[in-house]
């Protein structure tokens, strides 16, 4: 229950326009009182009703005004009335009983008339405000909610893990949250009003002649472009830099300025590097088992042949000793025929024909085995080529052949490989990364052919297309269903059984190709096969004008 003094210029005063003297003929106070849609009473100071207009009388019988008052409000109204001894108009809101017996909220104005002091009469006018009251309550709720929402939003903005700052139309910082302060190392008041570009972009850029136009970031804020996400490098207060993914959104509603939110990508980038490393280790683990077999096989037969050669040498030596004995002058009188007989016997024992035929073969096969191991070791060395951070020119045909050598054991039981390598120029690239991509594609092709009834075929081709080298890996395996063709490049997507693949192979391939400004696409028909097509710009990056 609230009561308050009526404002001095309350509406409905006698001096309001249109109500001057003399009164309009035929219209007296009673007629007026009967016409207004409000209740009007003439009351004694104690609240006895001396007169009432029809609207008030319609509320029913009652000698005291208080009989219409809601019980909850009686106390407050009496307090207000007691306070009103200065005989000035005042207003209260209270519940009044209507004709139907229900109570509704009213604003009641008490105006003293007929002399000074407590002895005088009062005119009470009551206006039904219950509808307005509901609207006000609703408004109050809305205002409250809005305040809560604003508070909530500022808490979120302040405490969210992403950095956030806002700029005005000129790109000057107008606010920033805690994460932004912590990541950048500045206090808010140190940066307010400074150009965001100058603050967060590395100082080398500031030195450039026209930093503003170079910075797409800055243009964004003022030109009212639509929201976008960009990868950026931000500079901390101490001059160190860090990678961020930054999203820029205009403030909207025609207001100049923008909201920047950004996330420190250092950890994410590290995780990406680690994932790539894991994938390399995974394929290395698989390769090493195959490589072991490829090495163990020649070692086995080189060992066997060498052992045979040792035996053969002993047999030959035995034979030689017999020959020598036959030549011994000390034998003196022994018949020539006897000497021939002894030699013949020794030759038979040594199986000289067999030795003569087998020893050269054993030697050449041993040398072949040694060469096999040597070439495998060379290929391994070439395959595991350690990239420097800079790209270098490499012969991709040779890289493909190297990959084929190290992965031979993965492929040879399931497929024949047909190479169709064209005359292609050296490509500026990270060779080690591309080796890995070739390996992943080769192993995938071999895996796809594993369940085929007969041997499959893997075709690897390379050719030039303008400034681009096009490399293709095709298999005649079961193909990739259309509905998952788009998913295959996503990290962790795999159709291989658990433990057989991490689903990183093609994701890595795409990442590597993107790094080379190239592309990888898949064409596959179920039942016919799958072809991966790689495009690599010879210059290592896309020509800017292209």
């Amino acid at each position, binding site marked *: 229950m609230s009561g308050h003094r009526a404002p001095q210029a309350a509406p409905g005063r006698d001096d309001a326009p249109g109500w001057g003297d003399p009164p309009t003929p035929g219209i007296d106070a009673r007629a007026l009182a009967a016409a207004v849609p409000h209740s009007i009473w003439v009351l004694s100071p104690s609240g006895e009703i001396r007169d009432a207009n029809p609207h008030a009388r319609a509320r029913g019988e009652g000698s005291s005004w208080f009989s219409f008052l809601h019980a909850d409000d009686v106390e407050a109204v009496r307090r207000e009335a007691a306070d009103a001894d200065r005989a000035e108009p005042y207003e209260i809101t209270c519940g009044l009983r209507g004709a139907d017996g229900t109570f509704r909220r009213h604003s009641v104005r008490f105006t003293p008339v007929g002399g000074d002091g407590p002895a005088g009469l009062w005119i009470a006018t009551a206006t039904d405000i219950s509808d307005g009251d509901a609207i006000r309550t609703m408004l109050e709720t809305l205002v409250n909610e809005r305040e809560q929402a604003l508070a909530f939003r500022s808490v979120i903005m302040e405490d969210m893990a992403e950095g956030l700052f806002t700029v005005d139309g000129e790109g000057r910082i107008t606010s920033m949250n805690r994460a932004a302060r912590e990541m950048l190392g500045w206090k808010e008041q140190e940066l307010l009003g400074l150009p965001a570009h100058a603050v967060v972009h590395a100082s080398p850029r500031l030195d450039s002649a026209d930093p503003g136009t170079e910075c797409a970031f800055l243009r964004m804020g003022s030109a009212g472009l639509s929201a976008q996400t960009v990868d950026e490098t931000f500079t901390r207060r101490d001059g160190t830099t860090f990678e961020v993914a930054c999203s820029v959104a205009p403030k909207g509603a025609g207001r100049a300025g923008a909201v920047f939110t950004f996330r420190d990508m250092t950890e994410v980038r590290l995780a990406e590097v680690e994932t790539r490393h894991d994938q390399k280790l995974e394929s290395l683990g698989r390769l090493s*088992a195959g490589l072991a077999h490829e090495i163990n*096989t020649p070692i*086995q*037969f080189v*060992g*066997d*042949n060498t*052992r*045979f050669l040792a035996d053969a040498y002993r047999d030959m030596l035995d034979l030689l000793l017999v020959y020598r004995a036959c030549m011994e002058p000390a034998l003196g009188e022994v018949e020539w025929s006897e000497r021939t007989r002894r030699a013949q016997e020794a030759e038979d024992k040594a199986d000289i024909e067999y030795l003569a035929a087998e020893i050269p073969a054993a030697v050449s*096969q041993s040398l072949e085995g040694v060469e096999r191991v040597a070439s495998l070791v060379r290929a391994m060395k070439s395959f595991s080529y350690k990239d420097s951070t800079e790209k270098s020119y490499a012969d991709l045909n040779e890289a493909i052949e190297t990959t084929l050598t190290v992965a031979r054991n993965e492929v040879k039981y399931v497929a024949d490989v047909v190479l169709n390598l064209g005359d292609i120029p050296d490509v500026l690239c990270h060779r080690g990364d591309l080796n890995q991509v070739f390996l992943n594609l080769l192993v995938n092709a071999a895996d796809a052919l594993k369940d085929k009834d007969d041997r499959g075929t893997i075709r690897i081709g390379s050719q030039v297309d303008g400034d681009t080298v096009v490399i293709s890996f095709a298999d005649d395996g079961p193909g990739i269903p259309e509905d998952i063709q788009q998913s295959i490049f996503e990290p962790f997507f795999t159709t291989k059984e658990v433990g057989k693949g991490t689903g990183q192979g093609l994701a890595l391939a795409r990442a590597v190709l993107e790094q080379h400004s190239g592309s990888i696409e898949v064409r596959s028909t179920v039942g016919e096969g799958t072809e991966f097509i790689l495009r690599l710009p010879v210059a290592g990056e896309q020509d800017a004008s292209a």
Partner: protein
Amino acid sequence: MSKPHALFVDDEPRILDGLRRSLRGKRGDWDMDFVSEGAEALELLGQSRYDVIVSDMRMPGMDGAELLTNVSRRHPEVARVVLSGHIEPEATVQVAVAGHRFLTKPSDAETLTAVIEQLLVLTSRDHPHEARQIAGGVRAIPTLPEHTDRIVALLAPEANLADAVRTAMHDVGLTAKLLQLSNSRFFGAQPRNASVESIVNAMGVPMVQAVAGAGHALRPESTWSPTIEEHLRAAWRHAVATACLMDLVASPANRPQAQAAALLQDVGRLVCLAGVADEAGSHVDLHAQTRDGVPFRDVGVELLHLWGLPTPIITAVARRDTPQTPEPSGLGVAAAVRAAHLLIQGTRAAGPDDGTHEQELKQLLAHPQLQVQAVDWFEAADEASRRADSWNSRVQP
């Protein structure tokens, strides 16, 4: 008597050339054939008698696992040796259940020769070829439903090393397979008398799971008649009880082998009984303990010999039913197995009886090694029998 006949299979002709040359020294002792394809090998096996086949694992077309599985079905009398350059454990285990012995490339001719010569030895005095015929076809030891539960539990991803050790030490089939594998060269050099526990610890859970899984997949689909199943169960319980009692009977140095021998003591009985349902026309005489006239024990010993288990274990199994008079200096593996077996015969876990041996048991218990221990042996045997019962009861889900 014709010369022993060996067949070598490898898809790499250089390997065959090398083997031919390095084994040339044996040309007076063996007949040898060298082929580069599984199909060709099967053809030759169909044409003449062979004693040993040595095969590569990964080959185009029919691979080693398929070839050897075929051989085990069609020519069980041919001892099967794997000679492989592959090192990945999963594939290894796949073939390990198809072959008897495993050699890795590179292996020198002496090693290969030694293995072949071992396999040319037939252990059964009275029924050498029949025992080889029956034992050669065995690829896994039959597993009862309650033990299958244990194996399945072991295959669960959350199985730990302690579980693996416990399961392996109580499982006849797994114990045999692990000893067979550890004695080959696939897993590097293992000490000759390695315990099942140390083998499991050295292999690690995933490898043991792979071995158990391969054996599990191989187990015969056939169901046995209730009578046969009860006999299998009784033999199994007797084996586990004897192995439990080994904790006390065998000296610490002999315990690993004595426990293994105790578990494997009736392996011949198990495979002969279980095989009844598989092969029509074979006849098992439960009273005489023979299959097709071959004593169960001869089959068991031949099997353990084919699988290359350590000699003390094979000897102990071979001599389980032979009265023993151990040296006072030590009981040894064989007498320990005999003593524990006789003790268990007095319990609920008793196996089929071949008479009373009270006098012999008394002498064995008087052996200094047992005498010094303050143990009531009959009570210990009852306790071991109870432990075997509780192990053999089905795992509560």
